């Protein structure tokens, strides 16, 4: 397996791939720097434009955006106390006080170096852990694959936090959308209502753009933030090579935060925000001067930014090997893989080793590029992005969304469908229904159905075939643990709270 990893390297070093990666990192920083826009949204808008590209080039763009956006979120977090991405909330704690003291440039340099190191650690985790895990999953038959899909859905519903009922509704909606179209086995038309455009089913891209791109655009137009006067004109930035030696004292924090970020990334349902919070708390707990935290402690930025970038590539470990994304961005990336004919899951590593291993290398190179692009070249320039007028930005994104979705099949039907999903997505977002289970439901629904039917055919209609081997039983046990675990934890906390109050 590791020989495939080395074999994929020359492809990644091609000019086209490196350009895509560089463009992706810059675009990611730009998107992350704008409050209200996220990596998830940017990748959703981008996915339809990658149809005509080589898969590796397209994936390089996505990897670059993901890496760049996680750092970009720190720019408004430091300068305006507005996190550009949800994962950058913790960066505001010490970043903004530093900017108030005229150390905004130094804070951003710590953020970019820490983000890059977190990203590099995460990419190494992906490179080292995914291949052996994939080898195990290659042994899975239809019933195991069915249970993997069920486990994936359950873990994102039950571990995401928030209302379980709403999570289940989101997942059921996603699975239901996945069955629209002509049944691949019986040929029966399901919910097409004589619309020829629906015979092939609903493209994941239409759903992604509708759910993840339209609601933020409406938000941009609903409440335009006034950021024109907030960003510091002078950041007090020194060349990064001069400030780098002063950061070496954060090595313990970088190491600890990387481990936390990688672990949180692998867990389905958790994400960058949780990684940043955990890492910040842990670093503060072990600090000799915890009283300075929250008042402009540079180590606080190092802790949060390392952790929120360390969950990027690691979130793809379960996504690529099992088809279970660790974060919303990973779910969108799965959609990106699908449109290039790459079905995430056990067979991906066998059928497309060059692409999948190349994708992993791109994460590593993307993280390294972050230092050069985000740090030495353009910290000041990116800070100016905060002055872009948001209504104008919103209307440009609307045009890009329409072009992207129309380009899939050259038909306006898809655009109307995207607007419909957008309206549903907006309502779901406002009513706090989680969106990742919808995407995962669409990705895993068809996959689960196909394997369930295959397993039943092998077992001649006997449902017990789903429980007959040890791997299936382990997966069932894990699924039950994922469902029951959070309930038990909640009950335990409630009991303790009652005991304390009593």
């Amino acid at each position, binding site marked *: 397996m590791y020989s495939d990893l080395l074999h994929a390297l020359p492809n990644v070093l091609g000019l086209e791939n490196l350009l895509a990666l560089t463009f992706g990192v810059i675009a990611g920083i730009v998107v992350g720097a704008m409050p209200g826009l996220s990596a998830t949204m940017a990748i959703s808008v981008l996915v339809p434009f990658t149809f005509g590209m080589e898969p590796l080039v397209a994936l390089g763009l996505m990897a670059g955006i993901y890496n760049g956006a996680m750092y970009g979120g720190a720019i408004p977090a430091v300068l305006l106390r507005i996190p550009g991405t949800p994962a950058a909330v913790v960066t505001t704690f010490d970043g903004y006080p530093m900017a108030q003291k005229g150390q905004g440039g130094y804070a951003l340099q710590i953020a970019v170096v820490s983000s890059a190191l977190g990203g590099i650690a995460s990419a190494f985790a992906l490179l080292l852990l995914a291949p052996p895990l994939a080898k195990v999953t290659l042994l899975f038959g239809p019933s195991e694959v069915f249970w993997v899909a069920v486990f994936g859905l359950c873990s994102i519903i039950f571990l995401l936090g928030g209302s379980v009922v709403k999570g289940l509704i989101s997942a059921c909606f996603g699975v*239901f959308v996945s069955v629209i179209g002509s049944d691949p086995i019986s040929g029966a038309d399901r919910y097409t209502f004589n619309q020829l455009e629906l015979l092939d089913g609903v493209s994941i891209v239409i759903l992604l753009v509708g759910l993840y791109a*339209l609601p933020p655009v409406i938000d941009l137009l609903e409440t335009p933030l006034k950021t024109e006067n907030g960003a510091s004109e002078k950041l007090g930035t020194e060349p990064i090579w001069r400030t780098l030696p002063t950061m070496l004292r954060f090595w313990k924090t970088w190491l600890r935060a990387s481990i936390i970020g990688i672990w949180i990334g692998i867990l389905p349902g958790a994400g960058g925000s949780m990684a940043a919070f955990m890492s910040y708390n842990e670093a503060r707990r072990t600090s000799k001067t915890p009283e300075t935290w929250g008042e402009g402690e540079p180590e606080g930025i190092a802790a949060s930014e390392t952790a929120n970038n360390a969950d990027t590539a690691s979130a793809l470990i379960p996504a690529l090997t099992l088809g279970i994304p660790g974060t919303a961005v990973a779910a969108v990336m799965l959609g990106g893989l699908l449109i290039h004919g790459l079905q995430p899951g056990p067979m991906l590593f066998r059928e497309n080793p060059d692409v999948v291993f190349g994708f992993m290398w791109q994460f590593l190179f993307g993280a390294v590029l972050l230092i050069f692009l985000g740090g030495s070249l353009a910290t000041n320039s990116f800070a100016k992005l905060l002055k872009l007028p948001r209504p104008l930005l919103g209307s440009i994104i609307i045009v890009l969304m329409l072009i992207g979705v*129309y380009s899939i099949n050259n038909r306006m039907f898809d655009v109307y469908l995207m607007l419909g999903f957008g309206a549903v997505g907006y309502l779901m977002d406002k009513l706090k229904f989680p969106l990742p289970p919808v995407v995962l439901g669409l990705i895993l629904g068809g996959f689960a159905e196909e394997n369930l039917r295959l397993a039943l055919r092998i077992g001649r209609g006997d449902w017990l075939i789903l429980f007959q081997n040890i791997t299936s039983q382990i997966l069932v046990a894990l699924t039950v643990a994922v469902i029951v675990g959070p309930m038990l934890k909640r009950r335990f906390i409630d009991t303790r709270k009652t005991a304390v109050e009593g």
Partner: protein
Amino acid sequence: MSEQKSNRFLRPETLTAVGLFLAAAAFLVPTAQLPQISALLPAAMLISLLVLAMILLIADQRKAAAENTSEPVLKAPPRVFGAFLLILLYALAVNFVGFYVSTAVSLPLVAFVFGYRNLAGLGIATIIVVAAIYLIFSLAMAKEFPSGILGIL
């Protein structure tokens, strides 16, 4: 976000639960006409949605009985509906009038309506965006956009 007193049956989650229940029930009709094996998964999902919608409804009504207030879902409803309406009109205009004309009109219009009032900035941004789309998509990628029933552009 300010809280408001409201009719307990007009709470957003209650309305959502009722809508969801009705939609799932309506989709069960075509499901009944599908072959058994094709109906298995969709029927399971629709029945689950019916049950979950009921649970959501009951939970929200219990919450309503306890607190009698609900948070408004939208911060500025006219802006939200306005944004959706303009986006829908833009999509229809692309279909009926043509892509380039609709884009050249809609892009500055949406930005202007939602608060960006710098006319020079709007003009420059529109020219740059439309020209970039033409150069990248129409010229370099030979992509064809809807010319509309009027056949303009």
